[in-house]
């Protein structure tokens, strides 16, 4: 594995057991997360992006199960670790920030206790005084006055709570932060400031961030790369500048054109036909073929693999010769 890759997801499948049978919420997805990057994972509701985010920490319980694939984090395959050892990785090495910080923070615990408990659970040798100092330094860095550390979550605003969540990840110097819709419950001005903060933290702490969101604008604002999911499949991956300038997959093309842009004058929003499919009965072949303006016969029959199209930009679409070539290669083998 390349040294610059922090997390490598290989052919991951996550299934939910339902009354209607097994539903694959993540279906044969591979993705490399590079050290120090902010990678935006986008898609519409139900595309599997949050399921993928949780799978990276093996957080699934109940009806959800990882049935196939490998999860290489910093040189170890997490799938081969006993599940009892996962808590040592969660929090300490991989932090997570969810959409609603109020449900992630303990309402009867002060911010201080959240932080010192996190530090001392993973580093029992740290004294109370040292843990407090560290906690205070951290929240000051994140723009919260340290006098407020003794407050409870409900006394803080939404933006501050989200900063506290980030501080919990930073307290243990997590290598990777998975942020699942971190700004969705925030108002635009607070969101803008939180995004600026994430960008600063990336530079200052060399933090790697997987930013899961439905908001394309947010990804454009701070991500280095973008990964686009649709109906449990990875459709396109590439540098943000490349993908926004020249999206390869017809889904990405439609998605980007249907996002309202406040700076564009007189542009018409693209009206994509149909709606995302029901994953308990996914369409055959390419999942997008039912809505694709360029659909061909092969699209209805065979699932296109995700292949490099141009430079570092990959897409899973039969329109491209390199994807076709992969198919021929397989036939010959």
């Amino acid at each position, binding site marked *: 594995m390349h040294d610059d890759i922090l997390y490598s997801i290989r052919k991951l499948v996550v299934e939910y057991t339902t009354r209607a049978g097994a539903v694959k919420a993540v279906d044969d997805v591979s993705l490399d997360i590079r050290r120090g990057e902010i990678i935006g994972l986008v898609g*519409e*509701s139900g595309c599997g992006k949050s399921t993928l985010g949780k799978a990276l920490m093996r957080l699934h319980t109940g009806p959800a199960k990882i049935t196939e694939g490998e999860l290489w984090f910093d040189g170890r395959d997490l799938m081969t670790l006993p599940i009892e050892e996962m808590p040592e990785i969660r929090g300490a090495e991989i932090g997570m920030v969810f959409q609603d910080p109020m449900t992630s923070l303990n309402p009867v615990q002060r911010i201080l206790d959240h932080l010192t408990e996190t530090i001392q659970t993973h580093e029992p040798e740290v004294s109370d005084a040292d843990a407090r100092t560290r906690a205070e330094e951290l929240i000051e860095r994140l723009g919260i006055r340290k006098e407020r550390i003794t407050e409870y979550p409900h006394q803080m*605003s*939404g*933006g501050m709570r989200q900063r506290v969540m980030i501080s919990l990840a930073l307290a243990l110097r997590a290598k990777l932060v998975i942020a699942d819709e971190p700004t969705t419950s925030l*108002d*635009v*001005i*607070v*969101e*803008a*400031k939180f*995004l*600026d903060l994430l960008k600063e933290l990336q530079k200052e702490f060399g933090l790697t961030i997987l930013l899961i969101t*439905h*908001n*394309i*604008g*947010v990804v*454009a*604002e701070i*991500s280095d790369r973008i990964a686009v999911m649709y109906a449990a499949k990875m459709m396109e991956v590439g540098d*943000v*500048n490349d993908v*926004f300038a020249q999206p390869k997959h017809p889904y990405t093309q*439609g*998605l*980007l054109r*249907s*996002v*309202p*842009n*406040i*700076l564009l004058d*007189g*542009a*018409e*929003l*693209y*009206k*994509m036909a149909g*709606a*995302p499919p029901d994953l308990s009965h996914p369409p055959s072949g390419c999942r997008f073929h039912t809505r694709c303006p360029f659909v061909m016969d092969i699209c209805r029959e065979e699932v296109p693999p995700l292949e490099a199209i141009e430079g570092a930009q990959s897409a899973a679409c039969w329109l491209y010769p390199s994807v076709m070539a992969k198919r021929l290669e397989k036939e010959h083998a």
Partner: protein
Amino acid sequence: MHESTTMGINAIPGDKSTNTEELVQVEHLRKYFPLQSGLFATLLTRGQIQAVKAVDDVSFNIHKGEVFGLAGESGSGKSTVGRLVLRLLEPTTGKVIFDGIDLSSLSSEEMRRMRSRMQIVFQDPLASLNPRMTLGMAIDHPARIHLTDLSPDQRRKRVIDILSAVGMNPANVFYDLYPHQISGGQRQRVVLARALVTNPALIVADEPIAMADVSVRALLLDLMMRLKKEFDLTYLFITHDLATAKYVCNRIAIMYLGKLCEVGPLADVYQHTIHPYTRALLEAVPVPDPTRRRKEPMPPGEIPNAINPPPGCHFHPRCPMARSNCSVDEPTLRELRPNHSTACHYAEELLK
């Protein structure tokens, strides 16, 4: 959609002499929600009950046939205004004049009849639809109340026509389906159909597309604009999303802590912004273009509590232009550009 937007903007002339018909006139509307407090708290405050000033002296007009946007962050009071306009809430003071009639003068029976002419569409269509009613029954419900001169057969025909008008085809099949059997985008179409069945003049749309997925939003907006033409509607479009507002609104009002800070034709408000808060809001909207970077710094802090709003201009503690009198004198709306008003003492500095 583009066509309707530009048409709308051109249709609002620069001078006031033209006679625009007003469908809704909101005059000095206030809504204070008293805080429930116990005996002890009442004694402490000496009986002075505190109140959340959700809407505090708001006035605006909605022209017939336009899309009037009302935008702001959460807690700005925009949804409360929407409910007050429909008299779903009683105002503390002030009045709403709908098509020349002062709504507060109506008896409850008169108001009930008036409701067929004004409808509301909420953000979450699943919460707006009864899970045990078929789509047909849901749309038929208001028709049964308001269209009493129609026979059941005529009503069924009307419901099917409306279903078809919102793009739910084949309508007779959808008539018998339940909300859980259709997609989120389709549910919002049904909610629109139900709002339209009584042939209203005004639709208050409170974040109507906020729950829909990106790829479905454009279609819903397009449908709303098509229905506006077809059914001769006027919209009060309540939203937090200034990027979406740009595609549909003819005029827009920006709210902050219960007050309007800027009102005007959309293009003028966006291009010649004359309130520092509107400026910050527009600057903060994420743009789907990685080559674009935000230039202006964001105002500090967050929207304060509406129980004790800052004195003077509510925005002054966060405002980059604030001077000493901003914390004392409350600014009122004044017209600085044609039909475009701002509530800022120093807005002239932004005119350049």
